[in-house]
């Protein structure tokens, strides 16, 4: 009975909460290490294809602007326009792509690239939730800040 009381005293103090959770995470980490090696599945969604010669390197996924590009998605039938964004270049990014070879990241980050395709189109809901998280967290911070400031 004594040990139970001691455990309950430990648990009942919320200062120990973090330690408790961290302990659980350590156990799972050890379990993770013990369960290695884990096989890497080669058939991935949105695989990378690297073409160092392209000016869009490392984000060149082929395809024609305003046309189709082969993108491995989970449910192709749900996003009929998948792959269109990938090959699209705005005038600015087209200019950059024509003139330099090492600005692939900038060009692709500019609207219209594989990451935009994933973030906004096929997995757009992730982005909605994620911006909501930022929104909520920021609302908390600014509410507390302004309450103090008054």
């Amino acid at each position, binding site marked *: 009975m004594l040990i*139970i*009381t001691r*455990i*309950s*005293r430990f*648990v*009942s103090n919320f200062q120990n909460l973090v330690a408790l959770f961290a302990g659980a995470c350590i156990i799972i980490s050890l379990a993770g290490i013990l369960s290695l090696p884990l096989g890497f599945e080669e058939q991935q969604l949105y695989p990378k294809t690297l073409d160092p010669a392209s000016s869009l390197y490392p984000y060149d996924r082929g395809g024609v602007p305003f046309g189709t590009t082969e993108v491995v998605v989970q449910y192709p039938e749900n996003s009929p326009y998948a792959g269109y964004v990938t090959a699209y270049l705005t005038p600015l990014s087209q200019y950059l792509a024509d003139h330099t070879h090492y600005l692939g990241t900038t060009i692709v980050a500019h609207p219209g690239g594989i990451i935009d395709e994933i973030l906004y189109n096929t997995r757009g809901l992730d982005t909605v939730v994620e911006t909501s998280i930022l929104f909520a967290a920021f609302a908390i911070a600014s509410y507390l800040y302004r309450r103090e400031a008054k």
Partner: protein
Amino acid sequence: MIEYLVFAAAFGLLLLGLHRKVIARVQMRPGPPVWQEILHALKFSFKSTWIPKTASAALYVGVVLVGIGIWSAALFIVLAGESILILFAIYMLHKVVEHGFGLSSGSPYGKFGGVRSVISAASEIPLFVTIAAIYLFTGSLLLRDITAYQAVHGPFLLIAPPVAIAMYLVILSKLPYGPFSIVESKELVSGYKTEHFGVWRAGISVIDGLKTFVLLYAFVAIFVGAVPFWAALVIMAVILVSLSFVCAITPMLSPFDSVTIQGLITGLMLAYVGYLWWVMP
């Protein structure tokens, strides 16, 4: 439909009355009559009813309706042989309802009852272990599949007794006057029920009756299998009497000790399920 509900509530309240009676007799007191709980429910229905000034009105009323709603749903799920996962989800959500009862009034007693009810959330975890163990055997969680499995292989009570014990403990922690009933401990007056009176209290009685009926009936369905309805009622009463004996002779634990013991039980159950998972093909 409605007659099932009325019957279940009435029978559940009867079982609770039986519970009190058995405890009283074990402790060598005369105890209230068996139908006392039913009378209570009827009495409260005709008493005057209003909402306390400090209460958060919509929540105060809403939780009663939600409570009745979820347990009615639970009853029909059991009767229709749907997924027991839903049943147990409702069982866990009852916690939230208790919490709502306690907090909505603004009364300190109710608040502490609600807080304790939340602390004792660990009591529900054995349920999921139960679910996992059953799933390992049947590969399905629909109640009708489980009864069908038992028709072939015999009752689960014999196949996996530790799982049955876990569920037994879960029911125990939900009954009043038991070792885990920290929510209704006497220093909190009536715990989360303190500030609900009149019709609202009658609603709580209905919830309690339904809850008792559904849990015991689910226990019978999951661990004993398909039996005639009257036989199920008899088995339920037998189980309840055994629970009452436990309640009568054990002291109430302090809140965090209760949580710790429930947690340890969960750990044991996890180990058992891990063992099952290891040995099963």
